[in-house]
């Protein structure tokens, strides 16, 4: 059973042992956790040494590459791009001109021209890809020569957008006319179409 205490002391006894026990327990826990933190720190330093060296190496590489990129960017900034573009276009045009097959064009024109129509001149404008605009002068013995030529060009897959610029009736009874047309060298030839 519980005792009865009616303490008349001016400064009655307080049992601080549970408080001290808690303080000691917390101190020990704090010390243990602190030691654990130190051990974890040293383990981290030791175990991640190789990884951290590799990270530093990669970071150094990245820094060097970044410096190279910056240098290249500076060099690109210093280039006259408009002139370079112009030069590139000129070179490409020259390459396209060299690659152009005149014989093939003439063969194709030969296959579509009527008997009473002859080609006087042809001037292509070379492009790298796509259709090559042609400006052609013809002479025909009859007034139907231009219409016949346009119709035949329209029927040929290697020619597109045939359009007359002018037609002149000459004093000697012949007709001269100018046609502009887009030439598609890579389209199937007339012979292939016919086949």
């Amino acid at each position: 059973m519980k005792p009865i205490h009616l303490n008349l002391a001016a400064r009655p006894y307080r049992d601080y042992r549970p408080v001290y026990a808690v303080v000691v327990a917390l101190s020990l826990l704090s010390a243990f956790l602190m030691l654990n933190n130190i051990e974890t720190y040293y383990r981290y330093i030791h175990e991640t040494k190789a990884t951290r060296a590799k990270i530093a190496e990669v970071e150094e590489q990245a820094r060097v590459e970044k410096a190279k990129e910056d240098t290249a960017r500076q060099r690109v900034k210093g280039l006259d791009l408009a002139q370079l573009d112009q030069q590139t276009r000129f070179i490409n045009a020259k390459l396209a001109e060299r690659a152009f097959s005149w014989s093939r064009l003439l063969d194709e024109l030969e296959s579509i021209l009527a008997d009473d129509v002859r080609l006087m001149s042809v001037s292509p404008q070379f492009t790298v890809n796509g259709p090559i605009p042609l400006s052609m002068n013809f002479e025909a013995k009859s007034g139907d020569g231009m219409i016949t030529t346009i119709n035949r060009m329209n029927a040929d897959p290697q020619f597109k957008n045939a359009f007359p610029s002018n037609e002149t009736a000459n004093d000697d009874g012949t007709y001269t006319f100018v046609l502009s047309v887009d030439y598609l060298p890579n389209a199937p030839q007339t012979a292939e179409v016919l086949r």
Partner: protein
Amino acid sequence: MRSFPPDVVVLDSDSLMHARLGRGKANPRIVNAKTYRLAPETFTATPVTPQLANEAALAETLRRLRTETGKWEKVSVLLPDSWFRINIVDLPSIPERDSDAMDVVRWSLKRTLPIPPEQLRIAYSVLSHAEGNVKVLVLSALEATLGAIERVFAAAGFEVVLIEPVGLNIWNAITVRESDTSGDRLFFYLRGTDFTTAVFRGAHPLFIRSRNLSAERAIDQEIRLSASYLRDSLNVETFTSCYVAGERGADIHATLAEEFNTQVRTVALKDYAEDIPSGMFGLEAELTACTGVFTG
């Protein structure tokens, strides 16, 4: 269970006993106990608590105690029951604030004491709290005496952490070793010049009285008067147990058994302490009280 520090001083008008207790297997061990005689007239009689008239005599005894026992500080001081007033007071209510409650308790003592309550140091414990009736156990003693004792102890390097009656702690030594009961138990503590009677119902005191013995009224007469009062006022006819402590306890066994119709048990130190040093004759009750203070 709460335990006080192991050093206990039992102070009386003519002597001082120091006991040092230690933890034992089942009960506390008496590590050391020694009695020191006080110079005559160290304490002089006053209506409630004797007055410390000769502080130097007590200081000299404490100096000897300090020399013989070495360095220690916290001490519980047990004083004779007759140095206190123990009252069970009925109050209509008690304030929640401690200071207000203490004022109410102090005021309630006004009718029962021959001195102004302002001169008392008081401790109380609420025993029961019913609607319109609060039963309070109040312990009081003269502030001047207790203050003087604490001052002399402090000057000798001792910190007094407990001041209580010897009888109350004999009862504590008994009751902490008993299992819960709701029965009525009777306790007698008999000394050469005074005695204490107490009745406990379960853990709560029903009746506590401490009186000086006089030439006009013998102890047997006092017991019969108490028995008559208990039968009439408290309606208590018989007790589950009756404990008797004190040197002269054996003298009253027959009277107690006859009046209260119960088995009477002597409080023997060997039942409450281990490793009792030899030569402790006449100090059994006081050392038993020490085991009610230091419980291990």
